[in-house]
């Protein structure tokens, strides 16, 4: 076990280094030179040069890369170029709001999707199953942009069920007031693909021998679905949910922008717009770390839920 973990951690080192190298080269190549913007409307070439020196972008690439690696090891990415604030500070204040929306969204959509998928799988081939599948497919075909625009207008403004946008200071207020509509949009968008996916997981299990055995033993269909099938289909579901999380941290930028949620995705767009390299680097490293961690956790969960899986 210990060796397994150690090996996985060692394996993640090259991945992390690769991600660093990739983002470093990419943004050095195309990230834009912020010195001219930072220098202001009137700026002489000397001033621009001085700023480049301050930012360290005049250094040879390998020196800059080494600084990046050191920053990753110490976890200190220095100050944002655009705002002069510690990068750690920026990201720390962004993570909370992102998670406040993402976690409820993931939980709710997983629960609903599981229930619907189980129903559809149980009634497979029936009219209900087909209706669920077709409506899911249709729901999935509409762009998230349309969902946001229409729901914000209808439910927020027209019907006044939710605040149109906003973000408060307390977790309670954010969770119970401001994140409701964004969570609803998120759930609606992710529900359809989730149901389709989970249904296929269930169908995979339904055909297994143990289900036949259970049926042969005379167990009720409901009991088979909940106790046996759910337990086994749960493994890929958990994987799917976990793996989504790091991607969603940056991927929810549309929701964050329209509902004024100060989350990570919005920050990434801002950082790229401002050529704020320290923030870009930090986000990449942390998301990469989270992705790797999630992958390892997923393997462990597999192991915990399914004794047949051996971790070598």
């Amino acid at each position, binding site marked *: 076990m210990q060796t397994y973990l150690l090996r996985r951690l060692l394996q993640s080192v090259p991945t992390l280094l690769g991600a660093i190298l990739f983002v470093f080269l990419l943004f050095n190549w195309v990230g834009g030179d912020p010195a001219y913007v930072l220098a*202001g409307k009137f*700026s002489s070439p000397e001033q621009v040069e001085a700023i480049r020196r301050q930012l360290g972008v005049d250094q040879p690439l390998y020196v800059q890369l080494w600084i990046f690696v050191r920053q990753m090891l110490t976890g200190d990415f220095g100050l944002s170029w655009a705002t002069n604030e510690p990068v750690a500070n920026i990201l*720390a204040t962004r993570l909370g709001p992102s998670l406040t929306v993402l976690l409820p969204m993931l939980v709710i959509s997983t629960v609903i999707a599981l229930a619907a998928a189980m129903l559809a799988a149980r009634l497979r081939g029936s009219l209900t199953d087909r209706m669920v599948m077709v409506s899911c497919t249709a729901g999935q075909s509409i762009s998230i942009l349309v969902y946001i625009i229409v729901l914000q207008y209808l439910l927020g403004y027209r019907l006044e069920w939710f605040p*149109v946008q906003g973000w408060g200071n307390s977790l309670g207020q954010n969770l119970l007031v401001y994140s409701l509509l964004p969570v609803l949009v998120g759930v609606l968008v992710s529900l359809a693909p989730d149901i389709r996916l989970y249904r296929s997981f269930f169908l995979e299990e339904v055909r297994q021998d143990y289900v036949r055995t259970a049926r042969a033993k005379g167990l009720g269909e409901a009991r088979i679905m909940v106790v046996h099938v759910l337990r086994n289909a749960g493994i890929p579901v958990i994987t799917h949910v976990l793996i989504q999380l790091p991607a969603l941290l940056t991927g929810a930028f549309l929701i964050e922008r*329209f509902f004024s949620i100060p989350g990570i995705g919005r920050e990434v767009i801002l950082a790229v717009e401002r*050529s704020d390299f320290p923030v870009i680097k930090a986000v990449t490293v942390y998301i990469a770390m989270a992705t790797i961690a999630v992958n*390892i956790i997923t393997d462990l969960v597999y192991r915990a839920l399914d004794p047949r899986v051996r971790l070598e």
Partner: protein
Amino acid sequence: MRRKQAIMAPEGNRAPMHRSKSWFSQVLSLIPAMLVPWLAMIMMGPGMTGLGVQQAHAAAPEKARMPGEVRKVLRITFQAAETGFDPARISDYYSGMVIEAIFEPLLTYDYLARPARLVPNTAESMPEVGEGGRTWTFRLRRGIHFTPDPAFKGRPRELQARDYAYAIRRFMDPANRSPYAFLFEGRIAGLDELAAQAAKSGRFDYDAPVAGLETPDSHTLRIRLREPDLGFAYIMAHSLTGGIAREVVEAYGAEVGAHPVGTGAFMLGQYTRSSRIVLTANPGYRSERWNFSAGTDPQALALDEKIVSVMRGRKVPAIDAVEISIMEETQSRWLAFVSGDTDLEYQLWEVAPRFMNGDGTLKAEFAQRGIRLHRSVDPEIVYLHFNTGSTLGEGGAANPLGGFTPARIALRRAIALAWRIDDQIAIIRKGQAVKASYPIPPGVAGHIPDYRGILRHDPRTANALLDRHGYARGRDGYRRQPDGSPLVVRFSSMPSERDRQFDELMKRSLDAIGIRVDIHKDHFAELIKQQKQCRLMMRMSSWIADYPDGDNFMQLLYGPNTGQSNSACYRSPEYDALYERSRRLPDGSERDRLYRDMTRLMEVHTAWRITDSRYRNVLTQPHVVGYKTHPVMPAVWKYLDIDAAAASNRRDVR
């Protein structure tokens, strides 16, 4: 966490591989160790739960209020994130607004007078001007104090002349890389030398004497300029030139941008970066009463008198707090305003037809709700600039648009004449802009309202010009250069939906005269870089007044400013000579004559196509009283009030 990891490692080594009943819990506790930076960041930052609020000051005593009195909070939005509140480090409009509310320059503007008129702020009176504008002596009011801050170690700290001298020095400190250093560059005797020295030694000596920056006593600031400059008073009214305490800057170091400590009517309360900024009324603010008189503009007289009658004698600031939310999307800002979540909103031109009639009045459904519309033209110009240099950047490729031969001038002229200005105003601006043809916008000294230039929409003449200068059409319908080589002009813009509209307009305009256009997209930083290196061919830019004087605009075409603000890289000896003469003249008909000639020079050489100045349509909720848009002072929050009775109908009165 780290300790735990150390303890567990040997234990794990002893454990046999297959006996793994407890491995799961072990693993779970190991994972965090691997993620030290990630988790540390979460825990260290207060932001885990959205409670990420920085208390910028030691808790200031809440203002004493009568029981039952509502807290008057003005809720507004910014369209883009702020970058920080250090006056010497920022350059964006929104951060500037907050800074204007917290820090106080020596001079400020009269709230109602138009055109904008300077009045003393923390200065006792207007400055004494000597030697024809070479020496400026400011005397400070006594008894103005900074808001309490730990940096002052519990003692009250009076605002003094040295705080202004320090603020000015900070702009020139290379370590601050101030985007607004140009306000003082080359102006104050001895200061540039000090900055040059700092650039060499790497350290700016704040204690070194500067000949042009003296404080004969604690409340007198004497500034000596290198050359006489009658416009210098405007600089000392600029919102970034407020007095700043050296103790605070030194105490917070690099993080001073999140800890602004000033003497203004407001101070920074809760601050969640790029999301929410709360400014609370400064309880120690000098007892000031609202006392302005109606301006002289006959059109605004009725409004002014109404404001005066309501506001005169009220305490400044009358409101308790300003709550700023950052909202990027117009749909969100508009819906927030109409559902009553914000009190004042102006960044709505995309949806203007939703609330305005064609004649610029508010639609009845909103007027009936008591919402008011305040309409004015911003002191800005938007212009399409052509690179007039013969190459794209130093030693770059040949620029098909550059140079001053008749053929090249004709090409630029044709593009300027082809520009579909009416579509720009009607479709892109949704009617929320006025056509402009003069480089100095309304509200700025030197503006000429009825100026008629030579550039207007006339594609027929544009085509004829091109025909006569040898730009023959090829088989595909697009024109070629006179030497027969292909002609492609490049238009640069940012990847955004709004810029896409301008791209489309450019294409439609140039298709009509058979010129092939290539749209070049890049992000802002890169565009600015290339523009300053004169590597762009065409781009739309806008310039909003830093101070309400025409010089701020006419310098945009001054040859030596190439690489800085002269984005057309326009070098005309005639223009430069006229500009240098104009610098020595005060605002008046003589200077206006020079400005007219300079404008015509720009037109005949066609370095720019000036397009429009945008309307500022400010919507206020019924309970907001005393509001009037000021052309150069955007943060007028301290001069307006919230009518408590009307506000009690509001959804969420605090």
